[in-house]
């Protein structure tokens, strides 16, 4: 556990880091970024918390078991979207043209329309869930290992 200054600032910063990560995930289909990058940003926020507060403290609020559930749900969203396209073909983008994320962006420079891309934003969201939970779990497990503790199971 680090000093009180570091802990207070981390406490404030984590919100911004989470929001930034979410932004990258949600805008994944119109700007550089996406599920993996946003998830990695969120996981880096978890790293900051682990460094500031120590893995023992974080373990109380961030259970590996829960992270594993979030991770699986993210993966399920991703593959569920692929299965949902099976009316035509696996991974078929069935949302194009529908009111949900169905818009087609205008050609040429424009500020970017988030309401486009069909299933891709949803898949990005699933990947984001999976990556943020997965990377956090990996880092948390490693932090606990290096202190010589066993993880739960």
């Amino acid at each position, binding site marked *: 556990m680090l000093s009180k200054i570091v802990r207070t600032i981390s406490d404030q910063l984590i919100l911004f880091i989470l929001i930034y990560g979410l932004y990258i995930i949600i805008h994944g289909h119109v700007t550089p970024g996406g599920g993996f990058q946003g998830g990695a940003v969120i996981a880096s926020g978890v790293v900051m918390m682990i460094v500031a507060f120590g893995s023992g403290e974080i373990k109380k609020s961030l259970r590996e078991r829960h992270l*594993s559930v979030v991770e699986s749900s993210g993966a*399920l969203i991703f*593959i569920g979207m692929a299965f949902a396209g099976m009316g*035509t073909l*696996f*991974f*078929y983008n069935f949302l194009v043209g529908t009111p949900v994320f169905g818009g087609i962006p205008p050609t040429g420079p424009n500020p970017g329309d988030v309401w486009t891309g069909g299933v891709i934003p949803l898949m990005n969201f699933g990947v984001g869930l999976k990556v943020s939970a997965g990377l956090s779990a990996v880092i948390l497990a490693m932090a606990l290992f290096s202190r010589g503790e066993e993880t739960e199971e």
Partner: protein
Amino acid sequence: MEFLTVHSPALVVAVPLLAAFITPLISRIGNKFRDTVNVTFLSFAAFLMAVLAVDIYTSGTRIYTFGATVPELAIPEHYMVPVRIIFQVDGISIFMGLTTTVVALAALVYSLQFVKDETGQDRFYSLFMILYVGMVGLEFTGDMFNMFVFLEILSIAGAGLASYRVNLADAVEGGFKYIVISAISALLVLFAIGILYGEYNLLSIAALAHNMQFTTLDMIALALLGIAFVMKLAGVPLHMWAPDTYAVAPAGITPMIYTSSAASMYALYRITFTLYGGHFDTTAIGWIVIILGVLSMFIGVMMAIHQTDIKRLMAYHAISQSGYMLLGVGVGLAVLTDPVALAAYGRDAMNGGIFHIINNALYKGMLFLTAEAIFFRIGTRDLNRMGGLGHNMKWTTIFFIIGALAISGIPPFNGFASKLLIYESVFRFNPLLSVIAMFVSLVTLASFTKVFYSAFTGPEMSAYKEVREVPKSMLIGMGVMAAAIIFFSIFPGLVVNTIVAPATNALIDQASYINGVMGAVP
């Protein structure tokens, strides 16, 4: 049924993947439920594989384009090259897919009891399914980049499973060796893909083969791919990881990792035959494969003789048996450009080599399972501390005898059928190679006789009086493989004609693979 047939190439991969992702969620309900779900999903995948196989053997190569409007639309309108992710399943792909599926089913059923008392079972089943997905994907994929992705998937899952028993120090080390080798080989593959992409702007195997010029850069890429896949399939001289990893992996996983190296062998064949074949004189490459095969055969069996760890011994035999496959197919590759020799003995040699892949996956997989059954009951892999196990573990003994006779090429078992094909055809190519192959087979027999005598025969040892037969699910797992071996032994001709010959044809007939995707482009 129509729906299943159309979507089977994708579903075979998607269904186990779904099982892998729901496993951590449903294990809350109960372990028994989770096991049932996993077995059901894998059985369903096996059923789909069978549906796909029937379809391919009746109506030829299947193409599945992900995200398109119709499966065959690999090249959309206004495009000249394939742009989407495609699965292209032909004779050899489905042959490997069937092999993988049989092994995976037996290994999963076997593992049900085996991991019952271990921790982290959810991860075990998730990784098991992902390993299966990696193998099938590697065998089905139609473009180079996904070959890399699936290679990495199977490597990561395989390494995680190999070091599953982290409480054993050697398990971690075996897993570490595997992941290091896998990471290096996968990066070499990616480097080669980069070279090919920079040159042709293409990733699809069919389109690359269509445009192949065989320049110096292509040769470098071929060398990189060759090194990478020989490393992964544990061919001598890049075999050092195999005994360590095979020895420490949990039962059920050793056959899977072994089958995944067979999948790497498939990738090697796919690249030499389909990607590069027809554009250059394959004799030199064929000879390289033959020499690798003979080296693997000979050095593998020689290293096996003096092993005292039963699984390490079998691992060296696994390397040695891979040599037969390389030898058979290498002869086919060497005479690929010579139609007379190809018809006279090249095709038979390839039939033998490819038939040996499935035979070997079955009996070698079963031998690994029996070895681990012994470990499960008496807690050691050291042959010197075993003895008299035949008294209490009757079924395991019977399965071991079947596997040992099959691997040594004793008639009438299936090992004899494929080895005979190899001996006969290789003899006409080069008698010396055939003699070496027969000699290796004899040494294999001697080595397994030694194992049999030291582990199963002799008086009942006082330390092992209480040893019982292994639980039912493990027996069923071994029984599935034994049944397959016996079936293959009784009907070798049928098996060669229905599933092996189409595989050989698919490798030789490069044009039809290319036309499957590039047919629409003039």
